[in-house]
């Protein structure tokens, strides 16, 4: 088991309310939180904004990680060609929200995205075909439910339950994460309560908890491979970029310092270090 994640907290204009929401999330026990920017058709794409200063205590700060996420709303007419560019890559997570069946198919098969999310708080307008879902799962994409709307409004709640139970039953909750989609602090619930809610959506006990812990973590690692690796397998960095604490990991490959000391000085700094990202499939 790993930390509790909430990978969808809405970015709102009111800075005070935003801080408050994040602080509440921290206090409820979430340790990894992503602030979502929604990009609708016609909006201008900007690079990821820096994390928001929260004035937490030192211990809270140590355990709290704030990420950035962008959710691109897809429709048939959207031009998807920019999804690989550097501005998009500056966000930690790339999610898409298809609004039509055609865009859903494209999101599941062609686009290189991490997460597919839906607006489950209204009638979806199209059918989630099993075939497309299977393709997406095979390609290692993740699906997301947001429980925030279900707390805000009773009509939304009905739709959320209807859509999610339907989806979970057909797919058995695999590769699914649950997040809040919170705009206000009142939309948030504590992780154990959310796990309980997930059981009401039809998930199994273990799945319900892992949809808040290990599945989002696997998603983040997948997102990191999309952003930072060559062909999803290799990252290259200079030895000097390794923090002091992690130096022991490469010390084994160093020649013994007694007789080969000179050679070491010349070679070691020029050779870039190759790291294989081993933990791609951490589940």
């Amino acid at each position: 088991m790993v930390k509790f994640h909430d990978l969808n907290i809405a970015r709102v204009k009111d800075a005070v309310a935003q801080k408050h929401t994040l602080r509440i999330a921290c206090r409820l026990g979430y340790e990894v939180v992503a602030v979502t920017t929604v990009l609708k058709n016609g909006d201008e794409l900007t690079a990821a904004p820096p994390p928001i200063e929260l004035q937490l205590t030192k211990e809270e700060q140590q355990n709290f990680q704030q990420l950035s996420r962008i959710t691109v709303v897809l429709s048939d007419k959207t031009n998807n060609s920019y999804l690989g560019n550097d501005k998009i890559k500056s966000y930690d997570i790339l999610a898409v929200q298809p609004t039509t069946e055609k865009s859903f198919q494209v999101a599941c098969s062609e686009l290189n995205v991490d997460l597919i999310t839906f607006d489950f708080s209204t009638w979806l307008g199209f059918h989630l075909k099993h075939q497309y879902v299977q393709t997406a799962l095979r390609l290692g994409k993740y699906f997301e439910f947001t429980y925030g709307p279900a707390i805000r409004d009773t009509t939304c709640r009905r739709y959320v339950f209807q859509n999610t139970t339907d989806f979970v039953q057909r797919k058995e909750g695999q590769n699914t994460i649950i997040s809040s989609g919170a705009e206000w602090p009142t939309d948030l619930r504590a992780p154990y309560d959310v796990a309980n809610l997930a059981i009401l959506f039809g998930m199994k006990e273990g799945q319900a908890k892992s949809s808040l812990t290990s599945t989002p973590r696997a998603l983040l690692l997948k997102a990191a491979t999309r952003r930072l690796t060559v062909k999803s397998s290799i990252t290259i960095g200079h030895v000097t970029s390794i923090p002091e604490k992690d130096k022991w990991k490469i010390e084994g490959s160093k020649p013994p310092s007694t007789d080969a000391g000179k050679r070491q000085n010349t070679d070691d700094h020029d050779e870039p270090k190759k790291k294989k990202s081993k933990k791609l499939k951490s589940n």
Partner: protein
Amino acid sequence: MRKVEVMLPGCESLPDVIQDISPDLDSYYLVKRLPVVELVKEEFVKEILRKGHFTGISVGTRVDNHTVVAVLPSGHLILSVDKDLYQELGLSGKPSKYTGRNATRFVVEIDLFNANHSNGKKQYNRVLWSLKDRLNLTFNFIFSWEPINEEKVNFMQLTRLWDKYVLEDLSIVSHTIQKTQTTVVPKLSHNQSLVSTPGDGQDVSSIYEYIGTISCDANQSFVKSDALVPWAALTVHGFDDSPVSWWRKEHGFHKNGCNLYTILILPDDTYWLYMAIGTDDECP
């Protein structure tokens, strides 16, 4: 133990024993940001662990998400770590029983009283290397220590060993007496039926529920009334996020970390023992 509750129904004034209860206060402490390596150093084992009952547990970390460490009087140091940390730790452990087929949590047990756990031995050096500042394993640590022989060696040694860290005296073991106005007390006798007969509210599990509701300060209207029944219940609460519970068996946290027991004493010296077992807990 984290908390002890004593319940005495039908008792007008508290007996003196309970009134001036003062647990041995000078043996209950909190150390802030203590590196785990301090707990395995030979000096600590020799001077402290072998010379008394030392029990300690890390606080503020959750056993289902984080790393938790505990030291038992039997000389075992138990570390419950997640998979990421386990892979970097370099000590062998067992996969946790409660994480399914693909273990995501591991339990590492180090026997500090082992002959190999002494200066110069390979195993000792390995443990030191693993737990030293490499992985940032520091915890807020609660411990109690009762030296076996009553000589006043004790505490000074500990402060000398750990003089770099903030040591806080937790002597304010709070102690509240609460008078519950209730006339509804179940009647108990030693030949009480141990089998649950639904509906009468007098079987063993209902009684436990009754004790629970009183302890939570809830309204208890489901147990039949009978005043003046002398029996007593003593509940001991353990830590929810402890990596071990009964007899060094593994303890986990799924939705709750039930870790408590109750002793119910009847007038004819019959004792009932209730043990609460959580979802991720092994039946003792």
